[in-house]
């Protein structure tokens, strides 16, 4: 009997919304997260299941079928070596997403370590921030180009070069967050109760910086995808043996005035993916900090 009345009471206080209603509310409140996340999820599916979606081998050269316009057999046409562009574009999703996510993770990690250290320890602050000033004084794409020219083209090197170019911004953000959190009363409390600095950083400071860091990480992800494509496009990024969107556009450059579709398809996929990540970032920013969202 008591159980039953309890159930009725809670039922009255919090009328349980039907599941569909909740989903609809989320979509209405955060349309950008849903749109961005949806497109991104689709791209991830394409990248993961590339070998089932693209039934023609993306590296198979067929000179007799070169420069075909899009047809039922070759959806996106073929390139100047007769390779199927649809397959190449589908496989290209792997490079873009891998580089985007990997750089977001690496740059966030590097930025967190240096930013937390600079924010928490005054002595390190000066050294680390001058180093970041130096790194940030070289324009990011130029920094990545210079590093790639030195170490040579491979996916791993691309990830490393773009991470180095992108992490100083994250480091600055984290340091700024730490400096403002340090002033809060609960940090004084933790210090007074005898917590060590590393413990305060991990238990009290880090959790409070996660929101802005997540937003910044999505922007780094989209910047990394554009930089990777730009590097591959000028021939300094992913090696030509691996299909990437920037690389396909680079190969289509010579013929683009008569065969614009070689450049069109990778361009659309690239722009759409970057747009999705940016929408997701904007949505996250608005959702995590509604006050700032109304201003920015």
């Amino acid at each position, binding site marked *: 009997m008591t159980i039953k009345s309890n159930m009725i009471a809670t039922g009255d206080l919090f009328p349980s919304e039907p599941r569909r209603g909740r989903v609809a509310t989320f979509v209405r409140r955060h349309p950008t997260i849903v749109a961005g996340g949806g497109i991104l999820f689709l791209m991830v599916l394409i990248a993961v299941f590339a070998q089932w979606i693209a039934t023609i081998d993306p590296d198979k050269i067929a000179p007799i079928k070169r420069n075909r316009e899009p047809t039922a057999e070759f959806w996106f046409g073929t390139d100047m070596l007769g390779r199927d562009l649809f397959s190449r574009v589908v496989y290209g999703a792997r490079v873009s997403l891998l580089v985007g996510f990997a750089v977001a993770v690496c740059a966030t990690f590097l930025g967190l370590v240096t930013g937390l250290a600079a924010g928490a320890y005054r002595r390190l602050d000066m050294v680390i921030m001058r180093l970041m000033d130096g*790194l940030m*004084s*070289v324009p990011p*794409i130029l*920094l990545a180009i210079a590093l790639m020219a030195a170490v040579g083209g491979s996916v791993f090197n691309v990830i490393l070069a773009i991470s180095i170019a992108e992490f100083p911004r994250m480091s600055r953000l984290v340091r700024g967050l730490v400096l403002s959190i340090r002033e809060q009363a609960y940090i004084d409390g933790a210090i007074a109760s005898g917590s060590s600095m590393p413990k305060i950083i991990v238990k009290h400071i880090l959790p409070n910086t996660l929101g802005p860091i997540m937003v910044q990480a999505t922007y780094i992800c989209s910047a990394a995808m554009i930089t990777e494509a730009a590097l591959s496009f000028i*021939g300094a990024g992913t090696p030509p043996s691996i299909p990437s969107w920037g690389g396909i556009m680079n190969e289509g450059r010579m013929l*683009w005035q008569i065969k614009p579709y070689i450049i069109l398809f990778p*361009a659309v996929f690239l722009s759409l993916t970057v747009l999705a990540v940016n*929408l997701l970032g904007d949505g996250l920013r608005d959702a995590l900090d509604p006050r700032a969202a109304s201003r920015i």
Partner: protein
Amino acid sequence: MLTFVCRRLLSTIPVMLFIALFVFSLLYLAPGDPAALIAGDQASQTEIDAIRVTLGLDQPFYIRFVGWLGHALRGDLGVSIFSQLPVTTLIGQRLEPTLSLMLLTVIISVCIAVPMGVLAAANQGRWIDRIVMAVAVFGFSVPVFVVGYLLSWVFAIRLDLLPVQGYTPLAEGFAPFLANLILPAIALSCVYIALIARITRTSMIDVLSQDYIRTARAKGLGQGPVLFIHALKNASVPIVTVIGIGIALLIGGAVVTETVFAIPGVGRLVVDAILRRDYPVIQGVVLLFSVAYVLINLAIDLLYTVLDPRVRY
């Protein structure tokens, strides 16, 4: 004021040193022996040794660095491995197209982005604001080479209004110069417009909520003078800052844009140098662009005191 200028000038010295050290180390980041790398695949051991001595590679790192820095300060950036011409000469030949492209891009961007941001801020939350913000997101998302090809395809190939690619020096007339440069500049300005419009909007919204704006309105000023005289002037510091920081985007974008539109500029020079592994040229261009970027931002910092007399250092 004078102490601030001195302090700010002094603070660029470590940054410049860092850039120099980074650029100098590039050659040594490359796996393997730099001398063998420069000599090429077919070089004999004696040739490699000769190059090692010419480059001074038999000396310790710091001595080489100081020597290189001394030459760089005197305007000697070494000799291109590929063409055997001094790097400064090569850059000098390519400077006009790149500078013209960037200048035109900045002019287009500021003329479009600032009014866009002001309009969005004045109509905050309404449809015009939403459109501006949507345009900004697209500007950030569509890479410059995609916009470049799209513009070129529509306006040069389909409509046949403008030349597809190439560059005409200013000396050969302003009209052909502009005709060749307008598409690349618009392509390059997309991301820059997005950046400036967004910060203009944010900064203007902050300013528009201030008391003196209410006072200006109360004394009967119209919307135009309030927005563009009272508000924009006070909102200008973050806008100018972002214009300076955005130069970094512009430099990276110029490298790619020059490839799309076959413009013989400094960006094209560095792309060709990468493909040929011509390290002195890569070093020279990275050094030049980075130093220019730092100096522009230094100039902007010094400009603050003029823009906003409240700024005191």
